[in-house]
């Protein structure tokens, strides 16, 4: 069998023609029809750039300077724009990273899904619609006959990602490019989407290129893996070879970042610094009985101890970020109370004193948007120093240098603008900014989710070190269960605003789990290539909003062990297990 895709000595440059900077260095690889190749590497490794070159496309500012990209009989680099437009979508199709952004918000889904078939004249409108509905069924989308009439904002992220796959497959292309298609999804959704992709690729005997930074995900999808770093090929081999007998040190580093997650140490118990009791919060109007119109959190209590980390875990929509906003006072709680060092803490931030604000600092998820790119690092760190501690001039500059040293950045970074830093550096600055106030508690909201595996591991390492050095308490909010497992002294699992499990770190790792936690744990892909195929089909996440005053178990519709007659009629009891582990479920876990 001859090769279907051949990339030969591909070089991609950016910047002015006279002094170009090369971002992809003479990359070559081949693919046979029906094979799935994974391009793996950190951001900046050129993996998306290479994938896009298979469509003859370069992002603005980039140039496909030399080499050849053959798909079938066409050299994508030798074609003009008109010829390329004719091939794109018909012969080679693309599934983008964030379906939420890649769907046009103002047009109906069906129009967008069938657009390429109509443009290329492959099918007429009626045929295309029938074909689209078939694809929706194949991709296990709910309500396949009517989902196309909706707008993109009316379906969930996981559904949108599958709809985008339908959009790519509508013309039955020879080659599909998947560009990090599950990075923005929850683990439980990711499993469903991966399964759908895998089945569809197989059904059409499509050649596929799968771009990702997550080795475990790639292990499920790919026949071959190409490891990239700084635009160069590090290693190219069949999946099993890469996973079991990696040759290049960089590949091994990637592998170890996935495997290494059980380096946990118990911190000694200290005094409670922050106590949160029976918090209820949400959005919308305050009702007569003091509750809110759209409740997000109900009856959440926990204690945060000095020098310890409390992990809050849940899928998107579980209310975990809302919880951080409640503690920070950005969203005042409707009911319940909070104590900071034993004294009452007002719910709203504008009612709190300066000292109280100083004690609770927030590290936002996305350092790119949380830090003003036009401000200098020194000013960003200096502002809380002046505001909380009245430092100015020399003293302030010295303290900025100390803070930079604390987060392991060179002191001369103080004069650089934030926009010029890398993602990992920005997240360190973000952390240093919170530390500048000398807080008692820091709230970390998904601080590693926007980072590459290796960089994220370094940030977590730093967090542990800082905690030991400064004895601060951390509330660590994440959807990544393995990170929480390895980092936290206490774990709270939230589902739709309700605490379903609460345990010490040690007890949490030992199991047993609440059925929801169980689902989360088992949804994290492992490096075993057969992992995905052995997963049972899960339950589609219902998009209905929870009913008010609903005391029943909120997980019952998705639960695999729900007990008929109990779960749908009685509120779940709280089971106490050894080591003060508490689980909200009808099923007795101790049995």
């Amino acid at each position: 069998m001859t090769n279907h895709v051949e990339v030969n000595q591909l070089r991609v440059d950016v910047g002015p023609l006279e002094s170009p900077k090369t971002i992809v260095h003479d990359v070559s690889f081949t693919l046979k029809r029906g094979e799935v190749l994974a391009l793996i590497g950190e951001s900046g490794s050129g993996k998306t750039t290479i994938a896009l070159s298979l469509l003859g496309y370069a992002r603005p500012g980039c140039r496909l300077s030399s080499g050849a990209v053959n798909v079938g009989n066409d050299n994508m680099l030798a074609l003009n724009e008109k010829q390329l437009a004719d091939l794109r979508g018909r012969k080679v199709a693309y599934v983008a990273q964030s379906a939420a952004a890649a769907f046009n918000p103002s047009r109906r889904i069906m129009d967008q899904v069938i657009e390429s078939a109509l443009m290329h004249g492959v099918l007429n409108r009626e045929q295309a619609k029938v074909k689209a509905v078939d694809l929706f069924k194949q991709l296990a989308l709910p309500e396949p006959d009517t989902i196309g009439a909706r707008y993109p904002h009316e379906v969930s992220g996981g559904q949108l990602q599958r709809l985008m796959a339908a959009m790519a497959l509508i013309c039955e292309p020879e080659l599909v490019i998947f560009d990090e298609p599950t990075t923005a999804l929850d683990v439980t959704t990711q499993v469903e989407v991966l399964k759908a992709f895998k089945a569809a690729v197989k059904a059409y005997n499509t050649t596929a290129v799968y771009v990702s930074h997550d080795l475990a995900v790639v292990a499920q999808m790919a026949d071959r893996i190409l490891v990239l770093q700084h635009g160069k090929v590090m290693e190219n081999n069949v999946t099993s070879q890469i996973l079991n007998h990696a040759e290049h040190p960089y590949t091994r580093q990637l592998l170890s970042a996935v495997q290494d997650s059980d380096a946990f140490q118990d911190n000694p118990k200290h005094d409670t610094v922050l106590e949160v009791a029976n918090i209820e919060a949400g959005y919308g109007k305050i009702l007569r009985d003091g509750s809110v119109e759209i409740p997000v959190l109900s009856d959440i209590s926990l204690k945060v101890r000095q020098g310890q980390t409390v992990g809050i875990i849940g899928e998107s929509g579980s209310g975990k970020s809302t919880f951080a906003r409640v503690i920070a006072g950005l969203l005042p709680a409707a009911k319940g109370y909070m104590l900071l060092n034993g004294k009452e803490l007002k719910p709203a931030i504008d009612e709190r004193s300066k000292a109280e604000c100083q004690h609770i600092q927030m590290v936002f998820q996305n350092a790119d948007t949380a830090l003003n790119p036009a401000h200098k690092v020194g000013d960003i760190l200096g502002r809380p120093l002046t505001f909380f501690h009245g430092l100015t001039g020399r003293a302030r500059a010295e303290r900025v240098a100390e803070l930079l040293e604390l987060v392991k950045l060179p002191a001369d970074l103080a004069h650089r603008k934030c926009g010029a830093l890398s993602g990992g550096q920005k997240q360190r600055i973000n952390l240093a900014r919170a530390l500048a106030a000398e807080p008692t508690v820091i709230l970390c909201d998904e601080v590693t989710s926007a980072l590459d595996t290796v960089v994220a591991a370094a940030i977590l390492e730093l967090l542990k070190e800082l905690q030991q050095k400064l004895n601060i308490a951390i509330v660590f909010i994440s959807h990544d269960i393995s990170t929480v497992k390895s980092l936290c002294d206490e774990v709270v699992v939230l589902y739709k605003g309700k605490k379903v499990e609460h345990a010490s770190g040690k007890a949490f790792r030992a199991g047993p789990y609440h059925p929801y936690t169980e689902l989360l744990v088992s949804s994290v892909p492992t490096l075993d290539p057969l992992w995905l195929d052995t997963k049972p089909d899960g339950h589609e996440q219902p998009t209905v909003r929870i009913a008010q005053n609903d005391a029943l178990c909120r997980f019952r519709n998705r639960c695999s062990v729900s007990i008929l007659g109990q779960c749908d009629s009685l509120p779940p009891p709280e089971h106490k297990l050894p080591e003060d582990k508490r689980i909200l479920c009808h099923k007795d876990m101790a049995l």
Partner: protein
Amino acid sequence: MKVILRLIAQRIGVSLITLLIVSAVVFFIANLLPGDAAQEMLGQSATPEAVAELREAYGLNDPPPVRYAKWLGGLLTGDAGVSLANDRPVDALIGERLRKSLLLAGFTAVLAVPFAMVLGIVSAMYSGSRIDKAVNIFTLSMVAVPEFLLATILVLIFAVELNWLPSLSYIPRDATAYDYFRAFAMPVVTLCIVLSAQMARLTRAAVVEQLSQPYVEMALLKGATLSRAVLRHALPNAVGPIVNAIALSLSYLLGGVVIVEVIFNYPGVASLMVDAVTNRDMPLLQACAMLFCVGYLILVLIADISAIVANPKLRKGG
């Protein structure tokens, strides 16, 4: 649909409140103008007795809140009062001028809006290219040049030097299409250039913003041509800001054309308002100001509604 109607009702309510506030502001600011109508009408040599008598006759001696209440009551019952300067009802005065003003504004809008759209969209599509740079230089310099300078230059060239067009914009009673063309050519061109420069810049900004969105890249990678990606994908999402830009520019046509009307001696509402200021003709001045405000609010309302209709999230969400 229900959501849209509710939104429109809300907006209209807010507009009425805005109008009430504006009426108060207009009234009290107009009353801050130095001098008074009686003095102005009777001239320098008038005896103080005659002035006092006239003031009494026009009710100018009442305290301002009383006069405001009377005026507002009149407005609500459709009576804008009587012009102090020439004793005719204000509605009649404005009525005949308004028709002419709307004619000028209409011609200008019909030409300027499509011109600006094309200019903005083309320069956004080829942003960074020579076309884009040329358009940028043109629009920037036109935004920077005040319209009286532009108008004067046009008059110098076409009326004084070439003698092709009349320098005054006069429409005879039995005007032919050619007469209309001659009369309108220069005022309309002046206004068009100034307006379309602004609109083109705002349109370009709105479209460029959308072109950087991932869904446009997606459309290209589905095999759409650049013009299809722009017209079918990017443009519908840029409608909100573009319609707002158009509304703002057109509202300028209603009130801000004073200078152009004065230079070409065009008998529109704006020049009427200028006369009202010189004559201290408060009822006329206030009525003109209110009229411009209503026009502005209507345009903004239309812009808001189109933005809502173009956005399915707002349309359904409410």
